[in-house]
């Protein structure tokens, strides 16, 4: 209860979800100068561990500089910066290996690491992520056990207060966190996270589990899973939800950080507004069918063949904030609605219980306000009306039988 009240307070004081796409020339000129200086000074730094040169890597993958610049201008647009920033963004991408990153994996399916690697035909987003200076990533690195712990200690010591901490996965809190332990010493995920976040410059929670608890936190949440923001307070924290988080948004956040030295503007759920300021529905390619009332009624019907709107088979685009309807996944290859499968709201809190069902909310078995009973809101409503009807009926019958009408004086 008290944290809900806290939440209310926060909503009143925090900046709302409003996105300002144009902040005026004066603002951008000053920002450009600042970013330019920062990039120049970063150029004089040596790359940290990862000595892969992104230019070479791109070349090995057969990506031309022209394509790279096209990509940079797309990222500039995504970050809502004027096109004059494109060369700076390209430079920032080339300097990716100046930002030390520690990556923790907690209670999850490793889907975000998977998205980040995508070794089969990587696109520029993934390649850029390849050359970040990943100092520690338990799932990917060769070391294990005590050796891995040593490496983590070293990285934390070496880049104290400088490293970006990426967290993937929820934190199990039930039974003192004993549902998930890490490493040879059996440290709980909770303690692990608290320890590593202590000297992070900023924390980036990637994926729905790390941001809001995600699938591990779905009802009845046996492990008491929560997101990073419920555990770590008083640190710059960026949430990049979605299942998995879009590598384009991870790159966007890192580039923004390299470029400006700051976290991007966030909404009340700590999501970068450049990516989560818009609803899927408002940029969806099937939106015209929504407005026309043309819906897929069941999988594979005539409507499905005609790419009708997926609302009636459960698309939650109208209640979901994310940019996948704009940038899609895998550098514009496709996205869920594009393949004919409605949005399941994977970037929203509690999505597994409240969004991920193949029918409109009104028809779904979500928790009724009465508590544990699973009912649709309409069933609940009809129950309510039936109860009201029965009450009225009894009263009416009783009134007929025994009611006292006023005497009409005549």
């Amino acid at each position: 209860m008290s944290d809900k009240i806290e939440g209310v307070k926060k909503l009143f004081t925090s900046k709302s979800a409003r996105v300002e796409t144009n902040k005026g020339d004066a603002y951008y000129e000053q920002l450009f100068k600042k970013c330019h200086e920062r990039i120049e000074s970063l150029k004089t730094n040596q790359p940290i561990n990862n000595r892969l040169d992104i230019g070479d890597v791109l070349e090995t993958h057969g990506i031309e500089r022209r394509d790279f610049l096209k990509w940079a201008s797309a990222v500039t647009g995504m970050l809502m910066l004027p096109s004059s920033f494109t060369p700076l963004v390209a430079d920032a991408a080339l300097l990716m290996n100046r930002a030390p990153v520690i990556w923790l994996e907690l209670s999850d399916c490793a889907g975000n690491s998977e998205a980040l690697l995508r070794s089969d035909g990587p696109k520029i987003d993934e390649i850029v992520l390849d050359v970040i200076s990943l100092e520690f990533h338990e799932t990917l690195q060769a070391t294990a056990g005590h050796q891995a712990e040593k490496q983590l200690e070293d990285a934390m010591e070496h880049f104290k207060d400088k490293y970006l901490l990426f967290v993937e996965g929820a934190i199990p809190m039930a039974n003192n966190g004993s549902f998930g332990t890490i490493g040879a010493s059996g440290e709980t995920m909770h303690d692990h996270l608290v320890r590593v976040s202590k000297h992070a410059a900023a924390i980036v929670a990637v994926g729905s589990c790390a941001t809001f608890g995600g699938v591990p936190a779905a009802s009845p949440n046996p492990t008491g899973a929560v997101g990073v923001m419920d555990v770590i307070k008083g640190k710059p924290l960026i949430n990049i939800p979605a299942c998995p988080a879009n590598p384009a948004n991870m790159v966007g956040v890192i580039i923004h950080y390299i470029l400006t030295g700051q976290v991007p503007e966030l909404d009340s759920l700590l999501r970068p507004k450049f990516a989560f300021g818009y609803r899927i529905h408002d940029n969806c390619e099937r939106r015209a069918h929504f407005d026309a009332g043309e819906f897929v009624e069941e999988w594979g019907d005539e409507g499905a063949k005609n790419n009708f709107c997926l609302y009636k088979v459960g698309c939650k685009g109208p209640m979901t904030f994310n940019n996948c309807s704009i940038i899609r996944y895998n550098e514009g290859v496709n996205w869920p609605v594009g393949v004919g499968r409605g949005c399941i709201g994977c970037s929203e809190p509690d999505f597994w219980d409240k969004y991920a069902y193949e029918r409109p909310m009104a028809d779904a078995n979500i928790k009724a306000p009465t508590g544990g009973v699973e009912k649709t809101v309409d069933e609940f409503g009809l129950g309510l009306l039936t109860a009201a009807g029965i009450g009225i009926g009894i009263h009416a019958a009783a009134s007929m039988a025994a009611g006292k009408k006023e005497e009409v004086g005549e």
Partner: protein
Amino acid sequence: MKAGYKQVKRMTTYMRLNHWVVAFSMIGAIVTGLYIGHPYYQSFIADPAVGKYVMAWNRWVHFMIAIIFDVSSIVIAYMYFFSRFEKPYKKIIPNAQNIKEFVEVIINLVTLNRRKNFDSTHADSFNTVFFLVFHLMLAWMLLTGLQLYVHGLASGLSSIGNWWPWMLHVATDWTIPVSNMLIGSASPTACIMDVRISHHITMWWIIAWIMFHVYYQVWRTIFWKEGDIGIVVSGSKFVKED
């Protein structure tokens, strides 16, 4: 007029107009809202796209009704305190007299009018509180509805200026955590779906409210024999002269 009865004015023209505007708007909001929630009829698939705009029209009507509700609610809220006719807030204050009247009206209802120990010339405390519940639910529909609506203006722009989405955010963002509480969600983090669920559930409470309201007014008319139902038509009812 029957002998021995006097006519008392209970509703001004504006109040009656407002009553029917709200009544018909409510039916419209329910019909279109249910369509938005679950499109229950289909547009003809063979029609060309320009010939159908079914969801968009439903949403348009829903939002137009919302604006009518907005205006009417602001006026109602004003009237609670400043009406020159009857100031409803006087009947809501829980003082001894109002509580007694409130209880007496309920007793009258459950004893099937065998006991009637209150003055039915004026708006009674029970009915006023009952209407307050309605107005609170209507206000909640407005606030949650506008919260659902404002996210379509994501860029912070609107055809009537930037102040509009800005104001809507300031005025309605708090409905997100409050909806989360109201629907009894187990999740620590509230989301826009909570607002939508609450918007939908509150509709059912409003329909239940309407059922009782209509029943009760008819019941009063039949059993009190004071022509209460006429209040919303002609503005007056009739009570026995002392």
